[in-house]
């Protein structure tokens, strides 16, 4: 019931490139501020290119409970924001010991990476346009997806304030809303989404952000029968299906493990999205 039964054999699903077995040691090539966030770059010359929406489990090579232990103890999950020419990019928000440690990393530091993991976005099967809806640090997986979709994609982003809205620069050309009205439209990104759907409902929605936002997107799309793919988040220990920790309830009972059944999940599979599925921002 909680186990995914993919119809596509492992290794042939384009939304799911496989990870090499075992974590690998990459080198940080840059770590730059972007408003309230940071963008961490790591050279990944041999790593398979991820699909947009996939993620990796990251841990700093030093001072991350490796051998002699501390908290952070387990690796942390991060969406690939982009993967360009053998370099992975991650968008980080410092919310606790793990993200804090990663935010500190400097060029040349070691980074343990297990990935790419999970299932990414899949493109609309018809000519409908793609609405990419991101909230806070949840904009990360939309960057690579926008790159891939190109002109078909309209990007709607929401942030709490100006410092966070600076993160919008990660993507091209986006409509922005902010909670405090300091940047773009004063209000929620779901207001932007409603307006877009009112204008033209022949769309597919791709969303990532905090649980309340994803729930609003889900409800909005469900009410209008618009297909939506939601990139969920949940506390993870392993990232590869081993711990059964990262679950979200399915519409028809039981749970999905979002590390292997997601993180990108068809909204139709879900019931109301609770507080424990969504990015922390």
């Amino acid at each position, binding site marked *: 019931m909680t186990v995914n039964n993919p119809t596509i054999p492992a290794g042939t699903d384009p939304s799911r490139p496989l990870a090499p077995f075992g*974590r690998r040691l990459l080198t940080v090539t840059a770590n730059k501020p972007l408003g309230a966030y940071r963008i961490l770059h790591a050279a990944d010359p041999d790593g398979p290119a991820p699909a947009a929406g996939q993620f990796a489990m990251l841990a700093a090579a030093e001072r991350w409970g490796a051998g002699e*232990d501390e908290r952070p103890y*387990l*690796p942390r999950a991060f969406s690939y924001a982009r993967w360009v020419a053998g370099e992975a990019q991650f968008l980080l928000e410092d919310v606790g010991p793990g993200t804090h440690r990663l935010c500190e990393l400097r060029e040349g530091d070691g980074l343990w990476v297990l990935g790419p993991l999970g299932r990414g976005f899949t493109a609309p099967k018809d000519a409908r346009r793609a609405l990419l809806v991101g909230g806070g640090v949840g904009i990360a997986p939309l960057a690579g997806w926008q790159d891939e979709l190109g002109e078909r994609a309209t990007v709607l982003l929401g942030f709490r304030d100006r410092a966070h809205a600076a993160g919008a620069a990660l993507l091209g050309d986006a409509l922005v809303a902010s909670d405090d009205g300091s940047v773009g439209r004063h209000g929620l990104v779901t207001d932007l989404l409603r307006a877009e759907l009112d204008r033209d409902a022949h769309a597919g929605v791709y969303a990532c952000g905090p649980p*309340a936002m994803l729930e609003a997107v889900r409800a909005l799309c469900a009410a209008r029968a618009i297909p939506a793919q939601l990139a969920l988040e949940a506390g993870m220990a392993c*990232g590869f299906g081993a711990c059964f920790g990262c*679950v979200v309830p399915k519409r028809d009972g039981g*749970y999905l493990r979002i590390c292997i059944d997601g993180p990108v999940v068809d909204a139709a599979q879900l019931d109301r999205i609770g507080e424990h599925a969504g990015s922390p921002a």
Partner: protein
Amino acid sequence: MSVDFCGLRLAHPIINGSGTFDAIGARHAFGDALHSAFPFAAFVSKTITLAPRAGNPPPRLWEAQAGLINSIGLPNKGLERYMSEDLPELAQLPVPLITNVMGSTAEEIAELLRACDTRKEIAAVELNVSCPNVHTGLDIGADPAQLERVLRSVRPALRKPLIVKLTPNCADVAECARAAQEGGADAVSLINTLRAMALAPAGAHGRERSQSLAWLGGGTGGLSGAAVRPVALAQVAAVARRVSIPVVGMGGVQSAAHAHQFLAVGARLVAVGTESFRDPAVASRIASQLDDEGPPT
């Protein structure tokens, strides 16, 4: 460094802890590479119960200092679908399969054992008498007399090696191990997780004040990982001194040095659990380092 374990010839002494590696799930992540580089000398499945279980509501995880608290709640497909859906896939693994089962009565356990007895894909059965996340009413594993009685009654149902996974949440684990041996166990394994709890951090994201204090959806959970290793080592040492059947030692093993310690106090095999979450391939590294260094002296 091949090892004999209850008549099974294993390539090395490192296996996985039940519920800490899902060979079917992991294949979605790693593809066939998982099988060609399979890290464990035998594969232990997650606990299977007669009826399907959805498991506990989230959150199911809490990171402690040098440890992990989980409250997974034994989600599984139930015996029938495990046999029909999972066994064929697990049979493709390059190592022997140990199926872990749990039942809340002797009848249930006997039924689980009988089912395992008929399937040649299963090399041995591990009986979980210890999971602290699920309230089985009576925790048979903590009371030696009851444990022995139950084992005596169910043992005839299985003609394969039976490993009893003891509970660490008891007054005298060595006495429980002795009872397991008397009751017919061919091996014992330990430790399972220590009963533990975490509170929601003040002002935790998305957490409303009205909700219960406990962070984990299941209320309490079980502690594993580095933090428990000193407790595990003491329990494994005490058990190995008391029984003559082989012992599978686990709890916070992170390196070949740690594995050595469990072997040194008398374990025949060592299982890696939480550490696989930090690196799914760690068990291969541990096994090959043990190999390089030879048996501990």
